[in-house]
């Protein structure tokens, strides 16, 4: 009897397995259907995947109170309690898209990013070294992007109607004061640092973050490498010098150290390639750098980079005020830069960054007026000739300390804040022809506090709000700079961004008066509107901008007849439109980009008699860069063409009668054209049996030998002018770079697939 009872009981248990249909629809918050979402009765086999209309339907034998769960990549999962009895169940879900770095819009107005890891980058580090006209210089490559000028007579970045002084360069958050080699009259100096030191570059042509200041136009933010992939030694040999180095990775791969040494001597190159200048001391540089990097327990990083260099150069050039006299210019430079910084994860979404940098620079300059037989002459009538004999000893010290604290809130929202302290001291000893000496010493203590939030309202809309408060002891006043940018992503993955900000800057150190009237910060307001569409193979972006300059520094003569900042009555504007198009897809194995900038700018500053186009601004600038790697030949071919319309030039003279500056002569240079070409040959590519990886480089500037005039210099005692062009019509670089201990072939393969 009981047996039967139990038997029946078991039968009932088995028969109780009846099927119920569960169906419904999964949508996002805007009621759009979501396909591919997984629907599951928790802890059972039963479930389904939504179809293209977001619908699902399945049968289950489960009974009772259960949880129905929805999961879909990129969305928050959702659960609903259901009771499964006899009736079919209809249940709909609306799930929320997660705001992730993968999907979220990136604020890009004003900035070009070159990075190896991040999305939305325009260039990679490798692009910088393979751009033909860049000649291995970071800023050379940036000059093929819109917003920059093709200025060749001095070093530096001239961005959107701004002077070179308005662009500041940062390494790991710390300002690099002497990024370029010391200026030599009429010759553009290159950047000191090797592009391979950096894993990421953000080049902001305006509207940059509150984390940086003291630059009216542009910030170039460089991020140095983390730990190397492996231990490696390198050697280089070229027409301009030789060098070597080692980078050692510890066994546990948590620390590394390295150093390099480079010796450059341009005697050979300048003997083969005729230079405008007559060198009696060919440029010679000794440079050495050292680094260490340590990964901390919580995934943070301590990095040190130290650099030391000496440079020597001397040349004669025809004196503009005479047909027979010559100017003999010599420069001896000693420069050091040290930067140590520490990045740490503090847990619970907190991050900490701190850095200290210290740099020194010393320039010993002398200029002599010489007669035909190379003897120093002092001509006191007219006195203008005598002043061509002078000596300058400029010593400067910069130090900076900085910290930033960052807290990650929910989603991608971030709030960060920090402070900067800069100390600078510059001492200039000027010795005139009659041995009279003038010494000026300028010291500044600058403090800044800043705060910024990244706020994501959705994956499609992000806002960055920031502010920076600064106080400079020289200016003896506070300034508050608000910064705002926002970005909106359209459904087709393109995006629009807007940026606004106010930027302040002290006058350049050499313009600071020893005594005199109180002067304030120069000021610029940026308004930038950008549209951009980036796919993995193509980039299109366009920007329009307006920059309003206020309180620019005007100069006047001080007691020694030196031009120094006198007041803040200058002003100006810059407005324009820019395009950038990069395409790796249309032509197989060919990568090219085109940039175009239109610039309309006028300003009244320094000794300008009125608001006028500055001599460093061309109205139209365009670049075309193309790269092709031919695998069977193991050779890469790179070409670039840079074009700019002529720039204005002026002779500005102080008129004693009218008691003001007047323009006595002016004009416009011819258009600028430069075709650059380079070849990289990698003989050991793919040969794993070879121990050394070798790259041969040949690069030629101004291949077509087009006439290039950057500007004109005027005689001081007449309206005589001479064109300033490149030191040689064409320059040819041949070099060989070797690295040992690692096969880089795979790099090269993947670079070109």
């Amino acid at each position, binding site marked *: 009897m*009981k*047996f039967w009872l*139990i*038997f029946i009981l*078991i039968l009932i248990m088995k028969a109780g397995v009846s099927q119920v249909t569960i169906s419904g629809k999964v949508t996002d918050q805007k009621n759009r259907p979501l*396909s*591919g979402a*997984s629907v*599951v009765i*928790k*802890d*059972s*086999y*039963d*479930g*389904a*995947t939504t*179809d*293209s209309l977001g619908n699902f339907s399945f049968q289950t034998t489960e009974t009772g109170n259960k949880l129905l769960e929805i999961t879909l*990549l*990129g969305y928050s999962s959702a659960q609903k309690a259901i009771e499964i009895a006899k009736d079919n169940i209809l249940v709909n879900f609306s799930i929320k898209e997660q705001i992730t770095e*993968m*999907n979220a819009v990136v604020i890009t107005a004003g900035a070009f990013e070159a990075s*190896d*890891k991040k*999305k939305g980058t325009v260039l*990679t580090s*490798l692009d910088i070294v393979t751009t033909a006209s860049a000649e291995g210089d970071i800023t050379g490559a940036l000059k093929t992007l819109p917003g920059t000028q093709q200025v060749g007579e001095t070093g530096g970045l001239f961005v959107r109607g701004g002077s070179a002084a308005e662009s500041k360069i940062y390494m790991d958050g710390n300002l690099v004061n002497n990024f370029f080699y010391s200026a030599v009259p009429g010759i553009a100096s290159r950047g000191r640092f090797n592009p391979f030191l950096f894993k990421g570059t953000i080049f902001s042509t305006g509207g940059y973050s509150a984390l940086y200041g003291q630059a009216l136009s542009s910030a170039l933010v460089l991020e140095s490498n983390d730990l190397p*992939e492996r231990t490696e030694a390198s050697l280089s040999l070229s027409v301009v010098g030789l060098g070597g180095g080692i980078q050692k990775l510890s066994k546990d791969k948590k620390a590394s150290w390295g150093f390099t040494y480079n010796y450059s001597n341009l005697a050979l190159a300048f003997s083969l390639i005729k230079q405008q200048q007559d060198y009696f001391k060919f440029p010679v540089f000794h440079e050495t750098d050292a680094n260490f990097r340590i990964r901390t327990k919580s995934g943070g990083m301590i990095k040190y980079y130290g650099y030391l260099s000496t440079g020597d150069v001397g040349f004669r050039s025809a004196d503009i005020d005479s047909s027979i006299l010559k100017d003999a210019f010599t420069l001896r430079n000693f420069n050091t830069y040290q930067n140590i910084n520490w990045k740490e994860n503090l847990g619970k979404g907190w991050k900490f960054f701190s850095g200290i940098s210290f740099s020194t620079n010393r320039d010993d300059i002398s200029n002599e007026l010489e007669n035909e037989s190379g003897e120093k002459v002092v001509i006191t009538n007219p006195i203008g000739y005598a002043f061509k004999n002078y000596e300058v000893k400029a010593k400067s010290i910069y130090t900076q300390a900085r910290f930033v604290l960052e807290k990650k809130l929910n989603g991608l929202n971030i709030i960060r804040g920090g402070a900067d302290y800069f100390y600078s001291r510059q001492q200039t000893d000027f010795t005139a022809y009659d041995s009279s000496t003038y010494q000026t010493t300028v010291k500044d203590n600058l403090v800044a506090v800043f705060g910024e939030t990244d706020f994501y309202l959705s994956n499609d809309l992000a806002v960055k709000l920031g502010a920076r408060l600064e106080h400079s002891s020289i200016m003896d006043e506070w300034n508050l700079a608000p910064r705002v940018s926002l970005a909106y992503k359209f459904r087709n993955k393109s995006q629009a961004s807007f940026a606004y900000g106010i930027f302040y800057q002290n006058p350049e150190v050499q313009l600071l008066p020893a005594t005199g009237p109180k002067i304030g910060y120069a000021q610029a307001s940026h308004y930038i509107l950008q549209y951009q569409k980036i796919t*993995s193979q193509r980039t299109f972006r366009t920007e329009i901008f307006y920059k309003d300059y206020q309180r620019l520094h005007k100069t006047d003569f001080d007691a020694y007849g030196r031009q120094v900042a006198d007041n803040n009555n200058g002003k100006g504007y810059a407005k324009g439109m820019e395009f950038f198009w990069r395409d790796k897809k249309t032509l197989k194995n060919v990568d090219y980009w085109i940039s175009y900038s239109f610039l309309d700018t006028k300003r009244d500053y320094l000794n300008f008699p009125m608001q006028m186009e500055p001599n460093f601004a061309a109205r139209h600038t365009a670049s075309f860069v193309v790269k092709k790697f031919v*695998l*069977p030949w*193991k050779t890469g071919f790179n070409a670039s063409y840079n074009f700019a319309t002529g720039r204005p030039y002026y002779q500005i003279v102080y008129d004693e009668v009218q008691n003001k500056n007047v323009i006595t002569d002016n004009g416009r240079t011819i258009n600028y054209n430069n075709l650059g070409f380079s070849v990289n040959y990698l003989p050991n*590519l*793919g*040969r*794993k049996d070879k121990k050394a990886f070798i790259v041969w480089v040949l690069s030629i500037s101004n291949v077509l030998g087009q006439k290039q005039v950057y500007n004109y210099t005027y005689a001081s005692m007449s309206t005589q002018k001479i064109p300033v062009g490149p030191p040689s019509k064409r320059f040819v670089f041949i070099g060989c770079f070797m690295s040992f201990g690692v096969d880089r*072939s*795979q*790099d090269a*393969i*993947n*670079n070109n*697939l």
Partner: protein
Amino acid sequence: MKKLLFAIILFCSSTGMVHAQSEKYLNAMKGNLQAIDSGFKNPAYLLTLANNFERIATAEKTQWLPYYYAAFCQVQLAFMEQDKNKIDGIADKATQLINKADSLEPNNSEVSCIKSMIASSHMMVDPMQRYMQYGPESEKQLTMASTQDPTNPRPDFLKGQGLKYTPEQFGGGCKTAKVEFQKAMDKYLVYKPASELTPNWGMDITRQMLEECNAK
């Protein structure tokens, strides 16, 4: 007596349930496995299969194979994905799944194969920038897979596949790939899967690639 009878019945019914469940498991797995081939022609269906395997895996908790197949389907989806922005997310999902399989069945050659494929899929997003990170990882997993089970043909097949798509100038191409495909083929011919559920894929595609390479 009554107690004994009850105990026996209880025993039978409970073991019967265990048996039923494992039959359910077997059937569910077999059904989905048979469908994988057609899944390759239709990514949406492959995702359905991935989700099916994942449900079985989550319900079973102790079986490594459903996690393995869920990861296998996901990594194939990553390879098929046209939108490069989505690949990393899919590959990360595959990683989550294969890590669970790995913890249930440590040192498994098949699991290492999937890990290698995942690394390759990450690399595909941006080969130029990612080779240094994911290239060695992918290679390392294949070497491990070969060591863990020298009779497994799949590491050789995957190695061959990688070489086939590497240009000849860099030591790739059919010439070198063929050697690996042949090695894989020799192993496939004698390979006996441990059960009808254990991985046994890749022979057809290996044969096809071998023929392609021989034709050149």
